[in-house]
């Protein structure tokens, strides 16, 4: 009954099918095939990425939970832990931007509170095609309002993120969402199904035919038919999820449940089999008891449904009533649908018959693992070469142009739609290098940032991976936070293409090296392959989420200049590196060259130095240098200054002037310092072997840069502010 076509439709290879037959000792029925197709999909099994991800450092003294659980956990002291994770929701967001992004938020939040943590922050990393195309605009509009719609309603602040634009995302936008929660260290919950005979409860929304095959969809390339596969998209109900958070946390506060797992991609299938596998037990459920929204659903549909806002709970035997009371207080269903069994099998009943009987080990642990072929991409030869190009005539104009490019321009249009102040923790609003959340009843704060430049990764994946980590950590250093844990979302094309696999391998290697150099553990992440549409792959797009701690929130530093007359100091060294810069892209329409290189030791030294000066209160502001280079970073210090303070500076180094102004050389930070502290700062720099150059002073209402005694940039702060501030709103203005 199961033929080649059906196997193919389930995204399984014939070899994989044979392995299934061998593992279970017979042909699977259609429901069982569906279960394997989900759990052996790339999305759930990591079969192509597993061997490479092993390179990431995952241990450290603060790590409470590394990769493998719903989210990673880091000890943040005072008996508290931070629980965080990042997820992609790329394909659903292309098909239906609002609901795709919204349900992405719903999913990542469930990953957090399923572990017993109250979610306190969301961040989003977005990649779209250029906004000159109406379709990209409407995707962005939908995605942003979807994130807002879900996050705002549920009351978790969206405090930061990043956005890039590139044509490679026109048919394949990326929507990566990060969430973080806080829990008491001794009250963490896991997806365990322990205690033979313990009841298994289904809680939350009813099951419908939503999103059947979502996980397999996320594991295949897109083609013209994909738009027709549309019924896959689910509608999110943030209100239900809000009730679910409250009910789950209330249940968890009492000693009445054994384990809990959310039903995300792969729904009932994943939650039942994973919980059982984690505990070496089995689970038996009866589908007739599952709350259903639609009539006539088959076992196949129920097991594969991705209806949102549902959880699976294993309760203590004599506490079921107590659990149900709490859910009923919050107007939610909580139904016993089965129990934990001996023998490690997943058994599913439907209308009195057993319709699934599989060893959970085969579903979860025995999926094939691939060491896929990899090959250096041929494009590297041509694309890394930059043909000669002229220098701009008017540097002021170039600076304004860069300030108003979508990637650099202010993103307030986006984050103003997100409630970023709910929960009264947000100490730094979006706009700073990292978001800062105070921890109530303590002096500490958490600093959060997302980063990842995909052009760098396209033209030098290993360096791209390193820089993504380095820049995220640098963002943290700029506010005064020490990085404590990393999560990452790796968005790539089809891993069956050797060139994509090579990109992947290299990026992971780069991330691993940087994390080791900075001594920070990776506690989890997500891999999203098959980001190809009609054969065209996106740039390799790693997104790094780094969590840091500020010991004393009152000492945290923001990027804007604070007062006139302060000295502006550059930490780090300028080099002539223009490859992959926003400048080349924006002014010459060239996405070429090799990205800036990075010396991780030097990077670490600069970051440590920045942290030290902040802890000694030697600096008033700090801002890292990234897209757009030195001049953009300096300009941003004015634009982010509450008083919009200008500056007058001189730069000297001997190199192409545009490289000096706009090159994206790494390991550089711009700081400002009160005059009486400058000497101390410079002395310390010498001692720490950090290059520190006084460029000039803040003050006035113009942005002025000299080079060899010539004024090369001179713009009123107001004008720069307008260019930067209005660029994105202008694009979305209905004319």
């Amino acid at each position: 009954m199961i033929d080649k076509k059906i196997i193919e439709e389930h995204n399984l290879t014939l070899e994989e099918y044979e392995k299934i037959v061998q593992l279970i000792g017979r042909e699977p029925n259609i429901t069982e095939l569906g279960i394997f197709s989900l759990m052996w999909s790339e999305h759930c099994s990591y079969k192509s990425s597993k061997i490479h991800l092993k390179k990431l450092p995952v241990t450290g003294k603060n790590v409470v939970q590394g990769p493998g659980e719903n989210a990673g956990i880091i000890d943040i002291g005072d008996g508290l832990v931070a629980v965080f994770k990042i997820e992609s929701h790329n394909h659903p967001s292309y098909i239906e931007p609002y609901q795709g992004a919204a349900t992405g938020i719903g999913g990542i939040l469930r990953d957090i509170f399923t572990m017993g943590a109250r979610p306190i922050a969301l961040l989003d990393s977005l990649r779209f095609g250029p906004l000159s195309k109406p379709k990209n605009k409407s995707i962005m509009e939908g995605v942003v309002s979807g994130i807002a719609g879900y996050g705002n309603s549920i009351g978790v602040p969206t405090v930061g993120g990043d956005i890039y634009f590139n044509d490679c995302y026109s048919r394949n936008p990326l929507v990566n969402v990060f969430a973080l929660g806080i829990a008491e260290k001794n009250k963490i919950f896991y997806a365990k199904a322990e205690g033979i005979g313990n009841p298994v409860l289904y809680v939350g929304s009813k099951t419908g035919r939503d999103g059947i095959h979502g996980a397999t969809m996320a594991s295949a390339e897109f083609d013209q038919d994909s738009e027709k596969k549309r019924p896959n998209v689910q509608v999110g109900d943030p209100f239900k999820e809000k009730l679910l958070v409250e009910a789950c946390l209330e249940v968890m506060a009492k000693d009445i449940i054994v384990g809990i797992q959310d039903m995300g991609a792969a729904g009932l299938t994943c939650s039942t089999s994973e919980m059982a596998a984690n505990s070496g037990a089995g689970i038996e459920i009866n589908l007739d008891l599952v709350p259903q929204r639609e009539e006539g659903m088959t076992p196949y549909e129920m097991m594969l449904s991705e209806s949102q806002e549902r959880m699976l709970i294993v309760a203590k035997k004599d506490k079921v009533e107590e659990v149900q009371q709490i859910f009923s207080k919050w107007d939610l269903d909580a139904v016993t649908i089965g129990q934990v069994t001996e023998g490690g099998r997943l058994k599913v009943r439907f209308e009195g018959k057993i319709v699934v009987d599989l060893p959970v080990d085969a579903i979860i642990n025995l999926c094939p693992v691939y060491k896929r072929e990899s090959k250096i991409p041929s494009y590297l030869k041509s694309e890394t070469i930059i043909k000669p190009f002229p220098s701009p005539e008017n540097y002021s104009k170039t600076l304004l142009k860069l300030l108003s490019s979508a990637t650099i321009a202010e993103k307030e249009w986006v984050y103003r739609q997100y409630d970023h102040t709910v929960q009264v923790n947000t100490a730094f609003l979006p706009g700073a290098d990292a978001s800062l959340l105070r921890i109530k009843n303590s002096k500490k704060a958490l600093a959060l940032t997302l980063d990842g430049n995909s052009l760098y990764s396209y033209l030098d994946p290993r360096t791209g991976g390193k820089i993504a980590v380095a820049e995220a950590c640098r963002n943290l250093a700029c506010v005064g936070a020490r990085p404590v844990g990393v999560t990452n979302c790796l968005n790539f094309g089809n891993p069956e293409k050797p060139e994509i696999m090579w990109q992947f391998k290299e990026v992971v290697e780069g991330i691993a090296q940087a994390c080791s150099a900075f001594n920070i553990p990776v506690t989890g992440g997500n891999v999203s392959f098959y980001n190809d549409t009609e054969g065209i792959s996106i740039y390799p797009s790693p997104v790094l989420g780094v969590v840091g701690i500020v010991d004393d929130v009152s000492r945290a530093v923001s990027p804007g200049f604070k007062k006139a007359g302060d000295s502006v100091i550059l930490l780090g060294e300028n080099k002539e590196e223009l490859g992959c810069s926003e400048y080349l892209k924006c002014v010459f329409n060239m996405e070429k060259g090799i990205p800036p290189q990075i010396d991780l030791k030097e990077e670490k030294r600069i970051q440590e130095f920045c942290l030290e000066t902040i802890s000694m209160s030697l600096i008033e502001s700090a801002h890292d240098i990234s897209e757009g280079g030195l001049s953009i970073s300096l300009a941003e210090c004015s634009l982010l200054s509450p008083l919009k303070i200008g500056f007058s500076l001189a730069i000297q180094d001997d190199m192409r002037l545009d490289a000096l102004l706009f090159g994206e050389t790494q390991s550089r930070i711009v700081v400002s310092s009160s005059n009486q502290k400058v000497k101390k700062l410079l002395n310390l720099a010498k001692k720490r072997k950090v290059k520190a150059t006084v460029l000039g002073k803040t003050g006035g209402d113009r942005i002025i840069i000299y080079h060899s005694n010539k004024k090369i940039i001179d713009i009123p702060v107001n004008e720069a502010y307008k260019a930067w501030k209005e660029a994105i709103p202008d694009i979305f203005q209905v004319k």
Partner: protein
Amino acid sequence: MKFGVVIFPGSNCDYDTYYALKNVFKQKTTFLWHKEHDLKNVDCVILPGGFSYGDYLRSGSIAAFSPLMQEVKEFALRGGLVLGICNGFQILLELGLLPGAMLRNEKLKFLCQFIHIRVENNKTPFSHQAKKGQILKVPIAHFDGNYFASPETILEIKKNSQIVFRYSDAKGQLNEEANVNGSAESIAGLINKAGNVLGMMPHPERASEVLLGSEDGRIIFESIIAKLS
């Protein structure tokens, strides 16, 4: 003196408001559950912000039917102090304790930002510690804050000095740009005729600590506390 913060399903500023009252202002504070009929002898009821019932149908509309709201209505009619913040304001409108209704923000986008409001009436229990014309920097976070009422109602409101706060710029000027959501008469806060029920869109509980970017919201809580002492 005791404060009561109501929890509706979907409220999400309940803990924030509780935190401000309890930890910042050190007041006796208790939660009130929407399904109950018990106001627990509180002296001031606060309807917090959020998305009660997901803001489905209309913001605040379903919450207005909660069992507890019958008690709140009677409490208000007896002269008890009721403060509705954001979603709480919307609920008060739906309940009919305040006149008018909320429309979607003029630009059809959710707005989260610091804005300024000008104190128009400082003779209320919620604003008497402020000076008339004082400018407060406070955050907003809402989708439906575009206040609407019929011309007759507006006349009536103005006649009775029911406008307590207006959106203004940092200098206290009223203009279109400052009136971010498009509210009639730039109304940011409105009191009932009897002067004991206030609805406001900005969140004073999010502006009660320096760390959070402003302390200007304190004056509202301090006014209530002084009034009840």
